[in-house]
């Protein structure tokens, strides 16, 4: 399977740079896959920040580090929790959708119909979806991070009555611009993983509706696992480069 996904990714790179470019399709998928994920990303992002601040506060205070709480929340959310949780939510919502949609197109011969009409189905169906996922996930992550910081503020405000200005100052002093880069850069990889795994599973679905269900489920499982593995690898690379 890993070999199959690798070859499928090579096909993507063989096709992505050559015309015809389906800009309208990419835009449509960015809307469908990205904008419709906003509600769940909003709730998740806000709650991550809120819960992280609430859970960490007693421990931080016990060690006399209560004033570092905004910085700790900000760093955790920006460098790790924001990108990874957003990517996992995105995988659950989008990868399964792509797997199911392309899978049902495969078993109902719609992909064959496209091919026999001299239209490159890989380019029209796969390249557009993978590009849309790769481009939209970083934007969703920035949005989720913003909401997580807001959630963190609410938790600290309720317990310590901190002012917004003080909270913003603490966050800005703790998080440097270089902390943002690895977190955001890796979401391009995560978006690519979600798109390519969902497309691979759906595009190669067989065995009728059973195959469609299997494509949908395994898209989520495989893309979530790959996100975590790549997070570990990219995390290691980032630490090596920055240290």
């Amino acid at each position: 399977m890993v070999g199959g996904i690798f070859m499928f990714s090579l096909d993507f790179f063989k096709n992505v740079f050559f015309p015809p470019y389906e800009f309208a399709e990419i835009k449509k998928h960015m809307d469908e896959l990205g904008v419709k994920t906003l509600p769940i990303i909003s709730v998740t992002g806000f709650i991550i920040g809120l819960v992280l601040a609430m859970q960490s506060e007693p421990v931080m205070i016990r060690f006399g580090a209560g004033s570092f709480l905004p910085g700790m929340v900000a760093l955790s959310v920006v460098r790790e929790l924001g990108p990874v949780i957003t990517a996992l939510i995105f995988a659950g919502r989008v990868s399964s959708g792509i797997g199911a949609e392309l899978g049902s197109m495969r078993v109902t011969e719609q992909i064959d119909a496209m091919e026999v009409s001299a239209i490159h189905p890989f380019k029209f169906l796969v390249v557009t979806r993978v590009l849309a996922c790769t481009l939209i996930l970083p934007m969703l992550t920035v949005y989720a991070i913003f909401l997580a910081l807001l959630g963190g503020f609410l938790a600290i405000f309720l317990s310590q009555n901190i002012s917004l200005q003080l909270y913003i100052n603490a966050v800005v002093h703790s998080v440097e611009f270089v902390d943002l880069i690895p977190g955001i850069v890796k979401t391009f990889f995560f978006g690519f993983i979600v798109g390519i795994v969902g497309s691979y599973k759906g595009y190669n679905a067989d065995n009728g509706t059973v195959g469609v269900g299997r494509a949908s489920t395994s898209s989520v499982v495989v893309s979530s696992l790959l996100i975590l593995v790549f997070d570990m690898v990219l995390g290691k690379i980032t630490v090596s480069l920055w240290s």
Partner: protein
Amino acid sequence: MSEVEIKHLSKSFGDMVVLDNISLNIREEENVVVFGRSGSGKSVLLKCIVRLMEPDSGDILIEGQNVKYLSNKKLNELRKYIGFLFQSAALYDSMSVRENLEFPLIRNFNFTPAEREKKIKDVLEKVSLEDSIDKMPAELSGGMKKRIGLARTIITEPRLILYDEPTTGLDPITSKEISQLIIELQKDLHTTSIIVTHDLICAKIIATHAVVLKDGKIRYEGNLEKLTSNDDPFLKDFFSNDIIDVKNGRI
């Protein structure tokens, strides 16, 4: 107009031989009906002709070009002039009827929007579904889907049309209408057609030539009238209507 030559075509799936050394010549403007039991390789034959499936051995020549050796670019050039009506019609679920019809026109031909619109209206008129132009496939009945599938197949004015069970799952009246439509379109467009079907009425309306497949081989090739009066036990069994003993209630 298009001529198809199939030479020594074989195709297997694992140990199961589906097509075994089949040779067939289809002349220009001929309507060849292919019969056979379910799983006898009829649809596989159609898919091999357009290279949706790769045959294990043998050659398929369309207008003198060997499909097997064509580059993807040349194959796509050839496919622009081949129509394929799938058994399920295979309409694109996410697109309206209009978008389904204009999809091949936008990507493969340089028509102006006005020309595209005229072509869409013309084919919808031919299949008597002008009012369905903005409907989604989910809003259409089985017969309407087949008609729209047919409209999408002919909108590019193909020289060769392959029909995979065009009347399966339709009531007898709609089946006859679809068959009639196919023969009218063939007369208008002068296409060569290969029709896979189990429907004898459809075949009687359309066929100029008939082929029967059994166990991966051609069991009969020739005239449809002679086919239905043939003494071969398999053919008799296949085309006989007297299969139920009414008095005894036995098959």
